[in-house]
């Protein structure tokens, strides 16, 4: 019972301490970002230039996290016609713009990815 849950294999070493630190840090980031402008009592506003470019930061972060891993395999360019992730991602983006629903986007993407990946091994 303890083995499959990972308790047995878990070592309380530096790597584990690091992971716990990152997880607590992520929780702090959640609190800070969600209540950012509500922490201080005195009123304050963003400088105009920051207000203008702030909306683009999440876009850059998300596309910077997802797309290189879809375009590359272990840091190498893979421009083959048999990459299931490509077809799934393009179809998922298209269905998002059609239906405006993230759940439909995931479901259709997986419906294309899983057969190509599991049956044909793309």
């Amino acid at each position, binding site marked *: 019972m303890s083995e499959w*849950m*990972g308790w047995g294999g*878990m070592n309380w070493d530096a790597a*584990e301490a690091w*992971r*716990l630190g*990152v*997880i*607590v*840090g*992520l*929780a702090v*980031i*959640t609190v*800070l970002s*969600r209540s950012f*402008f*509500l*922490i201080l*009592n005195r009123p304050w506003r963003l400088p105009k*230039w920051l207000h*203008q*470019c*702030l*909306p*683009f*930061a*999440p*876009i*850059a*972060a*998300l*596309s*910077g*996290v*997802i*797309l*290189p*891993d*879809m*375009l*590359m395999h272990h*840091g190498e360019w893979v421009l083959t016609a048999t990459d299931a*992730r490509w077809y*799934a*991602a393009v179809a*998922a*983006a298209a269905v*998002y*713009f059609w239906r*405006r*629903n*993230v*759940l439909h*986007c*995931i479901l259709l993407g*997986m419906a294309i*990815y*899983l057969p190509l990946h*599991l049956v044909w091994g793309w």
Partner: protein
Amino acid sequence: MIWQRHLHRRPEFLEGVRSMLPQVPGLMAWGLMTGVASVHTGLHFFDATLMALLVYAGSSQLSALPLMAAGAPAWVILATAFCVNLRFVVFSLHLREYLMHLTRWQRMSLCYFTTDLSYVLFIQRFPEPAPDTERRQQEVAFLAGNSFVAWAGWIAAILLGVVLAQWIPEAWGLGFAGSLCLLGILCSLLSTKLRFLAAVLGAFLATWAYHLPLKLNILLAIGGVMLFCWMAQSAVERWQIGQKASDESDASQAPQADSPEARS
């Protein structure tokens, strides 16, 4: 905050609960997948459970997981998570008008539970902040009810995902569903041409600088895109001012960057 009894007694608490309920199945599917993805990218059961219970932010968790697996330094992971969460910073500026009558502890704890969906439903229900104390309390009760349902559904689903991940083979590539989810959120942000351009540029920069150490390619992409978009907007503004000066009658029809007129 959402556990305060006097809020539960208000009819607006139940109204908030009811407004969130239709969203719960979609939310739970995403939570389930986030739980599975966190185990499949290499977190222990204990770490994955702790992350699910404490972090409560799907997109920043999904972005942090591959970085943690790649051994990126903690500050890069946290900076990336903060950038993915920057939309909440903008929401908090808006929520300020509604919640400043609460104590700091109440505000911060209520905001911790307020995700994208709660914020959107709350602003739809109360487009203007209330002028008096009684109606402010109603607003807080609504937000508490609606955030509570979202939190309960999400936590149940993500913990189920963490447990079920043991029986779901990694070969199914369900971690890919996490990428698709982030892709969907990314698409939802692409409301203007400039935003679309920002996504393309971000992908290009992050891919081009992929071999930088410490996963710095993502921070480089964020910095480059913000600089580019700021310059592009300033250029458009200057161009509009120039237009206005040269031809007063045509200036009103000039397209504005990042506004509904610029939508494709």
